[in-house]
């Protein structure tokens, strides 16, 4: 069933046992993003030390795709430099826009390759990107204020 390519085991696992869920008390930047078409909401805290992402925590409500995706991102992007994170994010965005033609590089994207199937369901791409776009926004804020230190 094509549906299985969307709801991979890894995704449902992350959905049921999300990583880094629960907001940290301190943070370099906090952002709140919504998906206007379905009402999903997410709050994301990012902390950085010496230009390296030291912690990502989040909270929110949403579908399995959006929740799993932010869980994966929060795990994947931590301990990376902003430049590295940016590269991963670009690769992930490309994967999402691939309409099912790409598999994703597991060396770069790790668990996020499980989201490749989303690209075949245009209405769900926004769900998968919600957490990543929130991260992107937070990264900009950290790097344009002194919040990162």
């Amino acid at each position: 069933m094509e549906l299985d390519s969307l709801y991979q085991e890894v995704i449902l696992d992350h959905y049921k046992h999300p990583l880094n869920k629960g907001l940290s008390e301190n943070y370099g930047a906090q952002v709140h993003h919504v998906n206007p078409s379905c009402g999903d909401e997410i709050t994301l805290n990012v902390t950085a030390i010496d230009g390296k992402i030291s912690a990502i925590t989040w909270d929110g409500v949403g579908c399995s795709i959006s929740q799993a995706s932010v869980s994966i991102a929060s795990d994947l992007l931590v301990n990376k430099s902003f430049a590295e994170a940016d590269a991963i994010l670009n690769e992930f965005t490309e994967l999402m826009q691939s309409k099912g033609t790409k598999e994703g590089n597991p060396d770069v994207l790790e668990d996020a390759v499980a989201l490749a199937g989303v690209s075949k369901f245009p209405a769900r791409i926004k769900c998968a990107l919600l957490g990543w776009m929130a991260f992107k926004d937070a990264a900009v804020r950290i790097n344009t204020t002194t919040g990162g230190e």
Partner: protein
Amino acid sequence: MSFDVTKVRKDFPIFERTIRDGKKLVYLDSGATSQKPLSVIEAESNFYKFTNAAVHRGAHQLAEEATDSYEGARLKVANFLGAKEEEIVFTKNATESLNLVAYAMGNAQPGSRFALTSKDQIVVTEMEHHANLIPWQQLAARTGAELKWFEVTPEGRLDLSAINSIITENTKVVALTHQSNVLGTINPLEAITARAHEVGAVVVLDACQSVPHMPIDVKKLNVDFLAFSGHKALGPTGVGVLWSSVFEELPPFLFGGSMIETVTMTSATWAPAPRKFEAGVPNMAQAVGLGAALDYLTEIGMQSIFDHEVELTGYLMNGLLQIPELSIVGPQNTDARGGSVSFTVGHIHPHDLGQYLDSQGVAVRTGHHCAWPLTRKLGVPATTRASLYLYNDESDCDALFAAITGAQKYFA
């Protein structure tokens, strides 16, 4: 049920196609938009094939025929609503119809019954679609008027207990939905229209979810404006209707050709309604298509359609309530409610549920249904909505039940 759904379905070409690997299309999303019978599709094509020309503008035969078709469609809409032709304005959708009223009120001269100041109030309800909420928020912001609203009870009904303090002497307009697109609730209008008119306010009715589904006689509704969309009533996309009995007093909204009486470089005067509100070359083919849609509905009979939907809604709710962990949001029985049924299923997010249903050929809508304040009030982030129409039958409901049960296993 006095008509044959199987026969009705044959009139709709889309039911000949299948979904996701050959599954039957179970279309339970008519609350978002309805499917179209062939007669509507052909009415629109035939306009282009045989009588296409700019209405009201040419002295040639095609222009005459186009004008006849377009004005004929206006007459059909008028008859359908029990109204007069000059009370019918074609817009692009109900959203434009509602914005038209709000903007035109904003264009009213000081002292007019439509003009608002910071002393005035606008009343809406908590169950409004964004299209009947944000235009009023904006009008309030532009004029300084206060926005007030009726709350929704946990049963999904309007709480009218404080009606006299919500609609006051300062209320200029009361805008509300006839039937909620989320809850299915049909609102009781008498108390509200009586109170509104007592204080001299106009009543704007969002009839998007009622006109396609029940017999309507505007003369009996006691409202001043009524808006609906063609595409939810078997009609084409790109056409909406605004009915009003007070068009003569209302200033225009969109400005341009065909809505004028005279024009100089610095000023203009207006044609009488409905022309005053139809600037530019209109959505002629779409209006004609809507006329054909109303013919189709009339032929079957609006009372029969309503009865069919009430019966089927009972069947739908009954079946849904037998599914463990499923809860229906809004009225739990068929009293004063239409065929939109929103629900949640345990911890399965509506987006995931909708996706699974889709894999089984079942088309529903998930999310806040453009009524975000209501969803928030109901304490749910989102719901799944099944909405019925004349082409649905019990087999569609059964397919939904089976698919929900399947989803519960899939996401267990």
